[in-house]
């Protein structure tokens, strides 16, 4: 759901940059506080992996495809939605400048949607479901799915405000496609990745596994 520059008037694009910037700042502050020799390799592996998986568009029928966003997965592993904002900001910077995927002026909106909205929605849905005693895999599946769907609806509303999409038809179309992309591209892959990490490196998930409160603060 990378919004290209031609879809957003410059003034709108700037407003989304202004909203996204405090989150980007906080995500860097999170990194300054949390990064150590043990976490740097995990962050680097996730940055590379999320970039690669975003190049893999999965067909969902209806002549449409979609790919994973990954903010929820990163947020669950680091037990902070700020980690998702940071990784998605880096991924979107490289995608925009090197590969013309997603706009440059529209990058603020894309960071807001895929980093902030998808990561926060996904992570806090996951935390809420864990508190309701749902298993790791189910909670991460539903969280990641919800994160993707809500961020797609946010993008649709932004395009309505931009005068491009009719409100209801836009939300219906974006919602329908991303409901399915959220199941296959986001929920399933996130749950599989979490299950794999749970088996091979349960210590990495200790924070989110045992205590959903830990490190889950906004700043």
């Amino acid at each position, binding site marked *: *759901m990378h*919004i290209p*520059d*031609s*879809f957003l008037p410059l003034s709108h694009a700037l407003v989304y940059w202004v909203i996204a910037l405090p989150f980007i700042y906080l995500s860097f502050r999170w*990194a300054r*506080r949390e*990064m*150590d*020799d*043990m*976490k*740097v*390799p*995990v*962050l*680097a*592996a*996730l*940055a*590379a*992996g*999320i*970039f*690669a*998986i975003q*190049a*893999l*568009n*999965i*067909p969902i029928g209806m*002549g*449409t*495809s*979609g*790919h994973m966003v990954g903010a929820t997965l990163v947020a669950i592993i680091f037990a902070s939605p700020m980690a998702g904002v940071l990784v998605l900001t*880096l991924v979107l910077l*490289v995608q*925009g*400048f*090197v*590969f*013309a*995927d997603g*706009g*440059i002026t529209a990058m603020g909106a894309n960071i807001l949607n895929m980093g902030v909205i998808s990561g926060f929605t996904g992570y806090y849905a996951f935390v809420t479901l864990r508190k309701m005693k749902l298993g790791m895999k189910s909670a991460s599946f539903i969280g990641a799915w919800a994160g993707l769907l809500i961020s*797609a609806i946010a*993008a*649709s509303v932004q*395009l309505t405000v931009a005068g*491009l*999409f009719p409100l209801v*038809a836009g939300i219906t*179309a*974006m919602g329908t*496609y*991303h409901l399915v992309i959220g199941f296959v591209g986001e929920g399933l892959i996130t749950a599989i990745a979490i299950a794999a990490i749970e088996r091979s*490196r349960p*210590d*990495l998930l200790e924070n989110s596994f045992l205590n959903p409160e830990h490190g889950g603060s906004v700043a």
Partner: protein
Amino acid sequence: MNATISGKRNTKFLYAGLVIALVISILAPFLASSDPDGLESAAEGVLGEERMSALEELAPVFESPMPDYSIEGHGKAGEVGAIVIGTLIMLGIGLALGKVMKKR
């Protein structure tokens, strides 16, 4: 757990993650669907093809070196190359940022 052991295991995690990322990068040009993504499909639906292609014709704000994950004139090999380069750039940025940011 002892910090050194955990550090080594995280280096292993990095290698495993990098291998997975590179395998996906190499396979993506062959496996990825070329159908429009959710946003493009939705835009085509609500705007109509004519308005959609008019918007897509607009000159980009910035000339990217490898637009659409491809290297001009190199076909599938160029696409593999582009995505592998991107994955390695991300690895580099991740490591560099982590190094700059990490606690001393």
